[in-house]
């Protein structure tokens, strides 16, 4: 083995530089769309968790996490998606994931999460899914 490698000599990066989350609102459904770009791994999973949590307001609007621009998805970030899914279920909030690329689909598939989460090939499908899911749900305040 060579001498200890110190990547700080090559890159000096923080978690919030490697992952970005941009929020938009779909006017038709009122859904919050969170577009995640970059690399979702052990380093950036806390950033992902924080940014997703920020959008869980009191109003129970549907949430769509769009992973189309994601370049890596590791198990730490998958655990975040699972927790967000559980939280949305507990709140009676529609939640869907857009996973278009193999680099995102593959880890969801091998962890079995693709059958637990509402996973879609594109944003249109995800919007239809949250719309249908919101329509089915009886409208009542807790």
């Amino acid at each position, binding site marked *: *083995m060579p001498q*200890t*490698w110190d*990547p700080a000599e090559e890159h000096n990066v923080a978690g919030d530089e490697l992952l970005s989350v941009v929020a938009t609102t779909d006017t038709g459904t009122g859904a919050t769309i969170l577009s995640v770009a970059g690399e979702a*791994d052990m380093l950036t999973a806390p950033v992902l968790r924080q940014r997703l949590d920020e959008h869980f307001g009191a109003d129970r609007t549907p949430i769509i996490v769009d992973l189309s621009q994601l370049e890596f998805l590791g198990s730490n970030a998958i*655990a975040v998606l699972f927790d967000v899914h559980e939280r949305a279920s507990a709140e009676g909030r529609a939640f869907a994931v857009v996973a278009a690329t193999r680099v995102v689909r593959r880890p969801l598939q091998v962890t079995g999460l693709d059958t637990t989460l509402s996973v879609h090939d594109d944003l249109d499908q995800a919007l239809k899914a949250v719309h249908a899911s919101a329509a089915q749900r009886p409208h009542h305040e807790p």
Partner: protein
Amino acid sequence: MNFNPRWLSEPFDDVRPPLQLQMVATDRNVSLARRRLRDWLTADVSSELVDDLVLAAYEAMTNAVEHGYADCPHGPVRLQARRSSDHVLITVSDDGSWRVPINDHFRGRGLSLIRLLADDVHIAAGPDGTVVRLWAEAPYEGLAHLRSRPAARRATSLGPPAAR
């Protein structure tokens, strides 16, 4: 007890110099090591296999960071990747002792993820450290023409590589 696969004791004929990195086990370092591994593999491995092996090796490195050094953080983690004319062998090792996570739904899946992504996996865990070896069939086609692996081959990837 670990069954020792045949490939573990067979000679490995490198077709190019291995990638060898030893780093302090931190979340930042293993993220950057993952990028180095991706670059190294991309030279002559199909893109689908690159994705799978990068994810598997990364999960092994995160286990070293999260579980290997629970008692004494910042121990070393080592990543080695080797290329022969028909296989890739990736070794991730640390000097810590893994704890098997019990009530953690997804951390526990890190290991099963590793097992599903490589053609074969050998894990040697002891009090002085853990060595994870990932083995994958990967026909060497030189540097130029990389094709995706046939889908059928991935479907049979759960067991050890077939005898040739």
